[in-house]
């Protein structure tokens, strides 16, 4: 039979056997036997990146049980797997690994693209700079199973479709590595609109006289009123007052004020501890501080006995077009209140001191901010990109990030 199906040897054997009376039947029965075996013993690779992997596991669980189809022994090594189910989003950084996995698998191998992300990038089609729009741009896909995520029954239906496709293989239709989709990322929405607009122009000219003729013979034509769906009306409900948060703002602010007199709240220049209360019970103190005092204020907030902000929630940044804002969220695990702290960073010199000496968790947060905004943290033990490849052009979360090759702008 040969791995790829119809190799030259099988061609010659087929010709010799065709002459004998039962020859054709012998070859066809062997082909049927082999394709029956391949179809009924598909061993999937243990590969799942995102939400579709949960539905793939549900298909393997007791209720849907894909073992009934012989698809049970999920192998962890690509060497023994002959089916990849692309369950989840394929990201640019994972693309190389996926191609390696596909090349490591012995032929004949099959691929099922499961879920909208693997078919076309799904929810991450527009404005996503790191998602590959569809698995068939990297490895040839045999069956597409739409859904987000598709039900286990839909995946089982997809597997049955793949079994049908395998059973048709033979020396007339040998198994071959399929073709890839080489189309650049285009926006199907606007394309459809443009094509339709051209169609409309042509139709417009053709229908001109038909319209006059229609207008003449029933001048008082009143178009039928479309019936609107009765929408259920609900009453306005006042917001429930939460019991604990917010009360301590004056107390907190007065503690900070007396050791940091120059401190001010974000967008509240003339604030005093007394007037903090009317900012509302759910207002969380949002301190603003220059770069110089940034590290000392964080150390003060952490080490002060009364405040005791011992947990770093997160460290992130906001790009205000003219400057960045480094934002630090702190939480006190003993008494539960939170304090936010921000410090402006100019776009000319995007650098600030690291606080990973105080909070070890800040190391990853700072690497993420460097990766997505380009703000360096001096004194950081391991200043590397966290999510993207090192050769990624630019820093994507900045407002002025443009990359026509990767990003498809949202049409509306």
């Amino acid at each position, binding site marked *: 039979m040969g791995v790829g199906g119809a190799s030259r040897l099988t061609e010659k054997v087929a010709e010799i056997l065709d002459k004998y009376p039962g020859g054709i039947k012998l070859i066809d029965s062997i082909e049927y036997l082999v394709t029956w075996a391949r179809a009924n013993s598909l061993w999937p690779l243990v590969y799942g990146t995102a939400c579709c992997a949960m539905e793939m596991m549900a298909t393997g669980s007791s209720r849907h049980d894909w073992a009934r189809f012989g698809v049970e022994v999920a192998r962890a090594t690509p060497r023994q797997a002959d089916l990849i189910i692309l369950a989840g989003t394929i990201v640019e950084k994972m693309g190389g690994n996926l191609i390696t996995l596909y090349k490591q698998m012995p032929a004949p191998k099959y691929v099922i693209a499961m879920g909208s992300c693997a078919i076309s990038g799904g929810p991450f089609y527009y404005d996503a700079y790191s998602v590959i729009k569809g698995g068939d741009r990297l490895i040839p896909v045999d069956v597409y199973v739409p859904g987000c995520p598709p039900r286990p029954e839909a995946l089982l239906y997809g597997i049955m479709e793949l079994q049908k496709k395998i059973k048709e293989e033979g020396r007339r239709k040998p198994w071959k590595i399929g073709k890839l989709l080489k189309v650049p990322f285009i926006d199907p929405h606007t394309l459809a609109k443009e094509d339709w607009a051209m169609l409309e122009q042509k139709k417009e000219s053709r229908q001109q006289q038909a319209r006059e003729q229609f207008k003449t013979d029933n001048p008082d034509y009143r178009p039928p009123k479309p019936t609107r769906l009765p929408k259920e009306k609900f009453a306005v409900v006042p917001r429930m007052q939460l019991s604990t948060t917010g009360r301590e703002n004056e107390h907190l602010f007065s503690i900070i004020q007396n050791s940091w007199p120059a401190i001010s709240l974000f967008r509240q220049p003339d604030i005093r501890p007394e007037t903090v209360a009317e900012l509302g019970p759910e207002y969380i103190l949002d301190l603003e501080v220059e770069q110089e005092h940034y590290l000392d204020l964080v150390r003060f907030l952490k080490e002060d006995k009364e405040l005791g902000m011992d947990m770093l929630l997160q460290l992130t940044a906001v790009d205000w077009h003219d400057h960045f804002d480094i934002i630090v969220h702190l939480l006190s695990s003993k008494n539960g209140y939170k304090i936010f702290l921000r410090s402006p960073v100019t776009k000319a010199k995007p650098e600030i001191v690291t606080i990973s000496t105080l909070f070890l968790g800040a190391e990853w947060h700072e690497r993420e901010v460097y990766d*997505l905004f380009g703000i360096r943290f001096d004194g950081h033990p391991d200043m590397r990109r966290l999510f993207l490849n090192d050769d990624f052009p630019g820093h994507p979360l900045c407002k002025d990030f443009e990359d026509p090759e990767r990003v498809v702008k949202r049409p509306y």
Partner: protein
Amino acid sequence: MNLQPVNNHRPDRNYIPPGFKNAINDDETSEEYFLNMGPQHPSTHGVLRLVVKLNGENVLEVVPHLGYVHRSVEKVAENQTYLQNIHLTDRLDYLSSHINNLGYCLAIEQALDIGVPERGEYIRVMVSELQRIQSHLLWWGVSGMDLGAVTTFLYGFKEREIITDIFEELCGARLTMNFFRPGGSFADVPNTFIPRVRDVIKRMHLALDEYKILLTDNIIFRERTRAIGILSREKALSYGCSGAVLRASGVSYDVRRNDPYSIYDRFDFEVPTGTVGGCFDRYQLKMEEMAQSVRILEQAVETFPNGPYRSREMPAYKLPRGIYYSQVETARGLLGTYIVAEGGPKPYRVKFRSPCFSNLSALNEMAAGHKIADLVTILATLDFVVPEIDR
């Protein structure tokens, strides 16, 4: 953007992979080498890549590599309207998608001062607790499978399908629900909801006892998880861990109790904490959380009110200029939603504080000095979801 197959094979011995301080010492006596537990590995729960410096079987240092499922959620969220972002939060931590939606809707309600009627609040609490039980069931099954007991995976999923049926009847989807809206939910609960929840409560009592016999009391499981991956109290706080990882190290912080949202302060439930901070403590805490969620459900089912399920629906959700932040306790820890609004229909900046991101950053603290098999145990009890780490 041409993608080539990746080849991690580095022949020369003094190559230092990124993130490590020093190379392996290469004299005859040492058996040190680098092992790449690549993005496709059965025990990394998705696509997390760990480069491990080993001496024989003992782990010296672990450096996780992230970004293999970084789907640029925050950039996409900046270009979608507020209502469209709700379905995006499903796909962050898809095992607690209801609770993610709730966190995002709380932030919008805080901005637009929207209240939620009594029945809506009850639906939110009950659906969140069902989602927590469903997530813990999957965690229990997968952590059993990572330790070699494949049958626990099937038993965990068997119970999980019952709760998935409730969600499918509730909002039409099995995993990515998109059910909550600012002010309540997009539809009322069907009348078969309460009987099904009572059925879940009954089954969960039986299942929890069965799981206790099958895995918790099993001598092999106890030996495999006893005194493994210990995280001290200071380190847990310094890394910003939350959820069962933080409570296992002795810090009693649960958002539902310490910073209550919705009507959680009306239900009484326990927030247990561990003493040693090892894998077995984390495991027992998560099993205890399941029992507590069942307790909350029992109380909520008794006093489930009638009346409207949501408040007035705004024609267009335009948040006034300002900063809004909300916190919820997902199955894995504290999920914070931070929205910077500039008044338009679309948010200016959305940042999700992911619990698994901080829990995983403490991996090197826990794994150094143990064996490879323990590294897998620590990954199992850490219970992280990679798309939420990479966002």
